[in-house]
């Protein structure tokens, strides 16, 4: 399917600063599940930015501005052809060794309530795929609150029910559990071609390693393996290493001004 993406976000830098720098991870690469037809990032300083491949194989930009405005606007636009491969990304030449994705991080702590069920489940050969699907379902259940889950920031029950936790929480829970079971798993950011009245948003899911198939995507929020509706942008250990825009200085979170992810004309 051909997907057209337009994404505009703003970043508050604060007034009267001398310089700012950003690490921008907003460039999808062509791979087994997608071909990037067109892509552009527009923001102050992008013309002279350093462009390089980061530790996890992503295309990164180091952008800087001298005496920037207090607010920075970043516009991303492009067209990507996607293929539904049942979530199988496979092996990409130059990928870093999968074993690295067993490394625990602060954001990917395993929850006992998720892993306990799978401690003694076989995890080699075909069993591994089954286990990962089981894990995805369990994550959706626990994080989604289908089962009574602890709200971490002490939100009231009604609030917690009203707003579904963000995709990052599902992805982190899945990754933490997989790693606890000794299965390499990584965090993926990307765009999702939305169906129905879902608002377009930056999305996040996980990929787990299988010795036979390579990397396989799991989207525990949607409870499915990524399809041709998913456009992969960046991978990493967790949400921190894949953050679309990191900036110094920065005041507050980046705000999405507008986003559209649509079937291309």
């Amino acid at each position, binding site marked *: 399917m051909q997907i057209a993406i337009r994404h505009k976000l703003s970043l508050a830098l604060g007034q009267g600063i001398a310089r700012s720098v950003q690490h921008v991870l907003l460039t999808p690469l062509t791979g087994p599940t997608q071909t990037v037809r067109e892509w552009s990032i527009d923001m102050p300083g992008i013309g002279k930015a350093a462009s390089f*491949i*980061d530790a996890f194989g992503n295309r990164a930009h180091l952008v*800087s501005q001298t005496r920037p405005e207090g607010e920075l606007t970043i516009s991303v636009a492009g067209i990507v052809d996607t293929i539904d491969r049942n979530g199988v990304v496979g092996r990409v030449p130059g990928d870093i*060794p999968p074993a690295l994705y*067993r490394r625990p991080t602060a954001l990917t702590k395993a929850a006992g309530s998720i892993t306990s069920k799978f401690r003694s489940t076989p995890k080699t050969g075909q069993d591994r795929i089954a286990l990962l699907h089981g894990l995805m379902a369990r994550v959706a259940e626990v994080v989604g609150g289908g089962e009574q889950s602890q709200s971490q920031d002490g939100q009231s029950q009604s609030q917690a029910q009203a707003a579904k936790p963000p995709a990052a929480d599902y992805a982190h829970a899945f990754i933490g559990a997989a790693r606890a079971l000794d299965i390499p798993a990584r965090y993926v950011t990307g765009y999702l071609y939305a169906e129905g009245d879902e608002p377009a948003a930056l999305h996040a899911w996980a990929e787990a390693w299988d010795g036979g198939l390579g990397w396989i995507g799991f989207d525990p929020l949607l409870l499915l393996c990524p399809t041709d509706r998913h456009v992969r942008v960046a991978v990493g250990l967790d949400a921190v290493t894949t953050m679309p825009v990191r900036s110094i200085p920065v005041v507050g979170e980046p705000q999405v001004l507008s986003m559209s992810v649509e079937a291309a004309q």
Partner: protein
Amino acid sequence: MSATPFDEMHNADGSIREPYLILEDWLKGQPPQALSYMSADAESLFRRLGITFAVYGSNEGTEKLIPFDIIPRIISALEWRKLSRGIEQRVRALNAFLYDIYHRQEILKAGRVPEKLILNNSAFCPQMMGLDPARGIYSHIIGTDIVRTGPDDFYVLEDNLRTPSGVSYMLENREAMLQLAPELFQRYKVAPVETYPETLRRTMESVAPGGIHGSPNLVVLTPGIHNSAYFEHSFLADQMGAMLCEGQDLFVENGKVYMRTTTGPERVDVIYRRIDDDFLDPLTFRPDSMLGVPGLFDAYRAGNVTLVNAPGTGIADDKAVYVYVPEIIEFYLGEKALLKNVPTYNCTNDDERAYVLEHLGELVVKEVHGSGGYGMLVGPASTKAQREEFKRRILARPDNYIVQPTLALSTCPTFVEKGIAPRHVDLRPYVLVGDDVRITPGGLTRVALKRGSLVVNSSQGGGTKDTWVLED
């Protein structure tokens, strides 16, 4: 553990070992009081040379001079050749190891070093994956800690591949000895250490990024005047003619690093950074760091600047990785390690832990991430309460400690209150790796001034000596 430690000056029968013959003769010729006067001269000399600066680091001027012992430690040409070959082998293998674990990780795939020990280690820096540093070198500036227990027995205690300090003392100690005992230098052929700053400069230039016109711009990046090693940072910058910068003096623009000069931005090519990995760049590492330069790591990643040493070198001198160094040497160089490792007990192994807990009184316990002689138990010098305390700590976190037998560190004659007496010493030679591996003949000898003490750290009553490597 032998009953009497090896004395570097005297043979067991009391005769003088060859390298020390001239020194013995010179010492005998000194009138009474001469050594005391020299000692006092040395102190005022250090103040004049500038060491006072490091010493009076605090604003109140309360810190003390690191004591300097006027009797040099002497190493024969033959001993040095053996030692330096072993050190060179180690640093080559460890750099190859760093390249491998930040690329294809063959050594882990081969199962020669446990995968988790490396990949889950906090000293491993995932952001370094796939990065190709100039000439494939990660650790350019190394200080290998060596102890000696016999005529031919040298052990490596620690590899220090991050930002080893103390080299300014090696240089200042030599300067002091040249002024205090010039006549000894006429009788001995002592290999020079004064070339170190120039060699450091050459080393840094040899790893500059490509595409630079003229000679590369070098800087020393310091955390600032409140850092305990600030004196050394400014000393080295001064000696090799590099700019001494703090984080605020540098900035990244369009992917390149610049310093703010009186005439505007000036491009920086190679940074000898004395700031720890975590604080180097708030954009990539700790966001709360005020010491670093935002964007520095990405500029490095983009190939526009060289960091000396590279981030993530700490994984190769991690105390838990230390036991695998002989394995690492064999894997990459196909050679047996020339220098010995100190046998090390692994407390996560039940049998070894049981042995350790039984024999704490004979062993040395070190925290895996500790340094400076803190978080350490020296069994033979410990009290029962201290041993009980460490027993508790080891049981609580067995992976946080490594345990080694107490080595009988060699002794050197040292001038103390009651005259000349043997005191335990260690040795830190300094290695520079760039277009070649260069080991400065000499190094920093640290001496435990307290009788019988094995702790040489300056923070715990240690002093230093000039270290002479003799030429043939």
